[in-house]
């Protein structure tokens, strides 16, 4: 399927926070509690529509364990967006956000759009991190923030699409030189390279699944 732009996303965060489940919910619209843990990296893709333009998201789902950080770092290159995920029921996954952010800042493009996701919002009764703390952290570090649930699908679609809309707006504003693929954006057929007068990147949900 042709697209106007292709955005590379990377999903990062501690092991077991639900990175692969978020991806699966977004690409396949299903929750699979039993799946193999991620070794290295897995890939997913889906088409979405923003400002009436078809945009393909190519999503890199990484292994979360500390030992694999040196490998994970090589995946940041050329990512336009990152989903930084923690588990609202496990405090330590929130505490590790700073080190993930440091990795991202160091190894990714400076203009990479980062979405902070507090996952497992369906388990509110076991909550160990308040929504306010998440908001506060995001604000301090200039991230977009949402709580989501890969299980109920709450905010999953929104998180991926809002990230894309933000990237799209950056393109419209001329922040990116889209001809330079190191920004994690590829121009496809029908894409209009370069700034075009700062229109709003109003997002619309949608899209067919596409791998």
């Amino acid at each position, binding site marked *: 399927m042709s697209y106007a732009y292709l955005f*590379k996303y990377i999903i990062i965060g501690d*092991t077991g926070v639900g990175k692969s489940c978020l991806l699966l919910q977004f690409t396949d619209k299903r929750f699979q509690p*039993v799946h*193999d843990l991620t070794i290295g*990296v897995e890939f997913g893709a889906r088409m979405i529509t923003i400002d009436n333009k078809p945009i393909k998201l190519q999503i890199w789902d990484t*292994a979360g364990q500390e030992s*694999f950080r040196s490998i994970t770092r090589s995946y940041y290159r050329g990512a336009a967006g990152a989903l930084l995920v923690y588990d609202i029921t496990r405090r330590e996954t929130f505490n590790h956000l700073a080190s993930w952010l440091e990795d991202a800042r160091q190894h990714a493009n400076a203009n990479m759009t980062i979405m902070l996701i507090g996952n497992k919002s369906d388990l509110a009764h076991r909550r160990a991190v308040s929504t306010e703390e998440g908001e506060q952290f995001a604000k301090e570090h200039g991230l977009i923030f949402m709580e989501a649930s890969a299980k109920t699908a709450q905010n999953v679609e929104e998180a991926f699409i809002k990230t894309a809309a933000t990237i799209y707006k950056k393109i419209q504003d001329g922040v990116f030189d889209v001809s330079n693929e190191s920004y994690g954006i590829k121009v496809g057929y029908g894409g209009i390279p370069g700034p075009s007068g700062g229109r709003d990147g109003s997002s619309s949900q949608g899209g067919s699944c596409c791998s």
Partner: protein
Amino acid sequence: MQETDLLDLSDEADYAASQQHGSTSMMRSDSDSGKRSSSSETDPAEVLFAKDNVAIHPTQFASERISGRLKLIKQGCSLFLTWIPYKGQSSNGRISEKDMSLYTIRAEPLVDVRSIRRHTPALGWQYIIIVLSSGLAHPPLYFYNGGVREFLATIKQHIFLVRSAEDANVFLVNDLQNPLQRTLSSLELPRVSLASGPSTSISAGESPLNDDQERADGSIHDANSSISQYSGRHRQKNHDPARDLSIHVLEKFSLVTKFARETTSQLFRENSNGFGALDRKSYNLSADEYSPKAANNAEKVSNAHPVASDPMEFDKLSLVWGKPRQPPLGHEAWATFLDSEGRIVDSKDFKKRIFYGGVEHKLRTKVWPFLLGYYAYDSTYAERAYLRSTKKSEYETIKFQWQSITPEQAKRFTKFRERKGLIEKDVVRTDRSLSFYDGDDNPNVNLLRDILLTYSFYNFDLGYCQGMSDLLSPILFIMEEESESFWCFVALMERLGPNFNRDQNGMHSQLFALSKLVELLDSPLHNYFKQNECLNYFFCFRWVLIQFKREFEYDKTMRLWEVFWTHYLSEHLHLYVCVAILKRYRNKIMGEQMDFDTLLKFINELSGHIELDSILRDAEALCICAGENGAASIPPGTPPSLPIDNGLLYPQQDEVL
């Protein structure tokens, strides 16, 4: 040089044996066995060409050659090539039966051949190199009695041969069925004169030398000292191909020919050399790349051999073809390896047997503890029973160490809590689609957890790391018993533990060795990775970390692992498997100009699509090809070699969970 007289019967015996092993069933109907074939239901086979005293040189010394008979056989509309060494007739005692069978070519279908390169040195014997579609090639076949031209002419009568535009001594073998190639062949490619020397445009077919007379006497060197002397000098320049044949050069040829097959139109439009297409879009590199060499070449040999090969291209010989896999080791054969007290008498032979065929599923529980190093090969039944019981109580002791941690104690023991939490999260994400591990509260999942947690106390410095559960899962599946599974896992981790070091040094050293092997075995691919900043080989990370566990179905993984564990040809066969897979897709990788991201995605998506047996054969062949140079590319201590003992097995692992 009496071989001609002695060979026939042994040849037939060998041939009969080879029929049982070869993948293609084929009946003979040449003069000496026509009667046998008449009883067959299959199409009769016809011997189109047979040549005696065709030899290979396993070493640099022609005196150590292995002589045999080369045949072209036609069955139905398929053409096969065989080369069977004369039994017991090697000219030198140093060549073993094993070597001889290693080099045997059993019914190689011509459709699997990509090209045949002819070499016609001024002095010495004519030889050919058969390059397969896989990019691998058979070692040079020396025609001690001449006959190369006749051989090629015979092939040409039955399938379409195209002379390479690149090199008049390279003949591309085309599939008869493909109409495009048929067209290509019928056009009889105009040979593009790449070199400036006038002689290079002379077709090899017009060579003044007569195939059938020129080398009829294999002892020509000894007979005439002055020729011998000249030969010596000449050989210095030309190098003995048996010593000097480079693998990647062969692939260069095969790449050229493949390219010719695939892009016929390009080939005609431009003076394609195919190879240059890798780094430039226009295919006009031939002139500047080849002229100086070819001109130089022409000058050296213009008096007799207009299209002799460029000696500079050859630096090492080595190509063989991995053996076909055998059926897995069964109970009966297993019993023959044991003496009356249960010792495995010939462990080398035992490992070799498993290397070539693996182990029947039901037998694995008996065999794996040996392969993993938990049982000693020379242990008796009684000794093993004793070992099991002492190891069982040792296991219980270690297990009790974490089982006895009270909740109050755990509150103050962060490292334990974290480790336990991580393991509990991972065992429920390990092979749950297998019935052995599926469902809620599956006792086998609890065993995975208990063994991993116990291991993290047994080896507290290393602890637990993701990937370990993937390695343990098949072991528990096979061994079933908890303590036995644990100790088999311990034995495996003696070798693979460094894969999980926090600093990843074990992984980095393997990926580094892999890059060295690719550099040795496929330098164009190495250069491609280099140019595209892929030399860290992170795209092979998962392959190496968990030994291809995620790339094959469960049963295939177990087969692969037991082959690895034999350490029969190399402790590092897994790296040769990496090379074999990369080589299989090299043209796609380079042709599509994959960058790091694309390559990583491509490699990931190969999962489930790799054909195990043929990759193992390729890996075996590559391992043999690489020989000592391959071994030298892998630094000592690279996993899964046993670590060099320095007292601390896992130093500086303080922060590991």
